[in-house]
């Protein structure tokens, strides 16, 4: 894990002083609302429906136990004792007082954390695979690249007032678990002609009102040129992106308007001026950053003995055995597993976690996973390095605080934005829909029979709940002051990324569990052996789903 040196620490400390000064000037009337707005947003502070919301940066989702305890402390002392994991792997608290925010930022800085650029029209937190560094299908650990990008983008003087927000994701594995196709810039680590890895560069993906799959503008970029190339893309966007209409201001609109070829040519021309300049990455710097992410000191285990212990544990505890099967993942190191801690138990707003649960996770990751954990864009937590023989005590520890829900990757492990309960942008309340669906599909055997299924819910078309890329997507819409929900099918976030298509007219909130159940019944009726929901849908098309749902009279 990256550790601050004096330079990094000084920057976050000075950022706290800067924001304290800005907050004081705002509270005394020296800065008006419009002036304070971008300044507070660039420190993660929103003014929400009920209270301000503070979004704390978790660079590429990585936290250590000390930081997790600090988050628990902050939620207790400055908030209501819980936090929310966002789809950018960040942590949000919903009830801070504006005048306390500088103190909260100072607390964060004391454990090498901050809220820099978690909102606003600037470069946001770079996200990646929650299984980075341990996934069996990995070509290269993407986290050093995320850290290199974090440093470059942090307090970048040229790109603090972009036309709109800007999101970068990096993927280093065969399967894409970072949704790189739906980012402003998606970077895929790929092998180069001379054996050195580089990047495939995608630009202009995004969700929101106009969902677009990113376009490739460079099949291979040598790694030393990463930052100068990013700088060229950002400069073209900063100068030419639309500023007259915030709904047309993302880079995806510019790429569409110019055409991919013309956009690429503009970037390459800008890059000619910048390439091989001082921003070129020396191997020594790449190595320095990569060293922070070297593998933890895994025990050299007798894999057969380790497997036998796990098998015995499973035999003695069938509920545990099921959790292992559903919530743990293959690991690069023999005798180890990565574990998903689901924050999607029935009745729990997706992604919410209490102070007591945070403290327990800090203890458990210290005991069983080298003192680190990861937040995921699926709004869960991952303990990435757990010995197989430690899975049982870990599970017991999780179970004691309600964190052992065995639904990772299944229907009820849904992504859901905070919605109209908190967010002032939302058209509709998304959490009650999530809770109603969780309650309807509590039966685990039924869930497992449905197989891997991603259901994503957004409370408005800003798409924070990533509804476009859910196998089933739900979008809250407002019709003359009333909440309705539009359903889309067939979205997917993997390397064969696709956007969902709208099923038809929208539904009332109370009808949503029935609608979902009907859709699932169509799938079960049509599926061939071993076929997933997505595969069946791709084979039979929308029509059978449409007919059954609207014949049932669910539509408004």
């Amino acid at each position, binding site marked *: 894990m990256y550790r601050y*040196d004096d*330079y990094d620490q*000084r*920057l976050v400390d*000075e*950022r706290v*002083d*800067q924001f304290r000064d*800005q907050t004081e000037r705002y509270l005394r009337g020296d*800065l008006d609302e419009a*002036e304070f707005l*971008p*300044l507070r947003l660039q420190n993660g502070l929103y003014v929400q429906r009920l209270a301000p919301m503070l979004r704390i940066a978790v660079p590429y989702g990585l936290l250590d136990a000390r930081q997790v305890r600090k988050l628990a402390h902050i939620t207790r002392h400055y908030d209501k004792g819980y936090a929310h994991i966002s789809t950018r792997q960040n942590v949000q608290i919903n009830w801070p007082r504006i005048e306390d925010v500088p103190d909260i930022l100072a607390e964060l800085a004391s454990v090498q954390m901050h809220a820099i650029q978690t909102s606003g*029209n600037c470069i946001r937190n770079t996200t990646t695979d929650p299984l980075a560094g341990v996934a069996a299908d990995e070509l290269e650990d993407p986290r050093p690249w995320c850290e290199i990008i974090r*440093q*470059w983008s*942090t*307090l*970048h*003087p*040229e*790109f*603090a*007032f*972009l*036309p709109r927000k800007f999101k970068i994701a990096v993927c280093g594995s065969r399967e894409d678990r970072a949704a790189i196709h739906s980012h402003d810039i998606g970077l895929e680590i790929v092998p180069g002609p001379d054996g050195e890895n580089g990047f495939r560069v995608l630009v202009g993906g995004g969700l929101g009102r106009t969902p677009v799959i990113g376009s490739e503008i460079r099949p291979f970029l040598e790694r030393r040129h990463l*930052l100068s190339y990013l700088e060229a893309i950002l*400069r073209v966007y*900063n*100068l030419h992106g639309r*500023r007259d209409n915030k709904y047309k201001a993302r880079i995806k609109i510019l790429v569409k308007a110019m055409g991919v070829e013309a956009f690429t040519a503009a970037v390459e021309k800008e890059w000619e*001026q910048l390439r091989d*300049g*001082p*921003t070129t*990455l*020396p191997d020594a*710097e790449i190595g*320095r950053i990569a060293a922070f992410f070297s593998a933890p000191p895994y025990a050299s285990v007798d894999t057969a003995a380790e497997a036998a212990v796990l098998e015995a544990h499973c035999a003695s505890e069938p509920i545990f055995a099921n959790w292992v099967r559903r919530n743990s993942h293959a690991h690069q190191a023999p005798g180890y597993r990565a574990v998903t801690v689901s924050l999607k138990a029935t009745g729990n707003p997706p992604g919410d976690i209490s102070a007591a649960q945070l403290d327990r996770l800090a203890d458990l990751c210290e005991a069983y996973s080298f003192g680190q954990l990861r937040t995921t864009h699926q709004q869960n937590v991952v303990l990435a390095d757990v010995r197989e023989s430690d899975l049982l005590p870990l599970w017991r520890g999780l179970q004691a605080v309600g964190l052992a829900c065995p639904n990772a990757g299944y229907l009820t492990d849904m992504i859901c934005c905070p919605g109209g309960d908190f967010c002032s942008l939302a058209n509709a309340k998304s959490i009650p829909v999530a809770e109603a669906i969780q309650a309807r599909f509590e039966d685990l055997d039924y869930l497992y029979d449905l197989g891997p299924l991603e259901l994503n819910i957004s409370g408005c078309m800003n798409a924070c709940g990533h509804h476009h890329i859910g196998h089933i997507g739900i979008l809250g819409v407002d019709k003359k002051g009333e909440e309705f929900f539009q359903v889309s099918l067939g979205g997917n976030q993997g390397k064969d990324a696709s956007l969902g298509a709208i099923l038809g007219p929208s539904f009332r909130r109370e009808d949503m569990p029935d609608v979902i159940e009907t859709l699932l019944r169509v799938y079960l009726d049509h599926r061939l052996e071993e076929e997933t929901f997505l595969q069946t849908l791709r084979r039979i098309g929308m029509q059978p789903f449409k007919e059954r749902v609207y014949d049932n009279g669910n539509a408004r």
Partner: protein
Amino acid sequence: MTTVTPASGAPVQQRLIRDGAVVADDWLPPAEQTPGEGERRILTLAQWQAAGSPAGAAVQLETDDDPAALLDALPGLALVAVHFEAFTDGRGFSLARRLREAGFTGELRARGSLLPDQAHYLRRCGFNALEFSDPDRLAQARERLAVFSTDYQGAADQPLPLFRRRA
């Protein structure tokens, strides 16, 4: 430094930070009418072009102007100003960097709608002169020219990124 008194004879308002110091402005802001003989006035891009792109002039770019129009004449210009219609219009930051990367070494001035809190970034992007009509904000901006004692990225003020400078 020469201090020029405008034709009206009114005292010049201190509204400029140049190279870190608050100084009297020795240029007049752009105006609709063509400047008189010997008047030190900043020209709009159109006025400068209409006058035959004279050397020694001071030219103002709007954030949607193409700086390519200036590139050939840059070495001879006394001053380039970038006018921010809104402080949230970040194009001016990229324009400044392009002008410095093209080798412009004269005065590069930011004017228009600016926040004192932008002083650090403006300076880093290559502006060595910042205009604020409000004296309190002028003072605040001067205090905020270097709110960060170090920076990760290379920019116009310090071309080397931190990774080439870390001790």
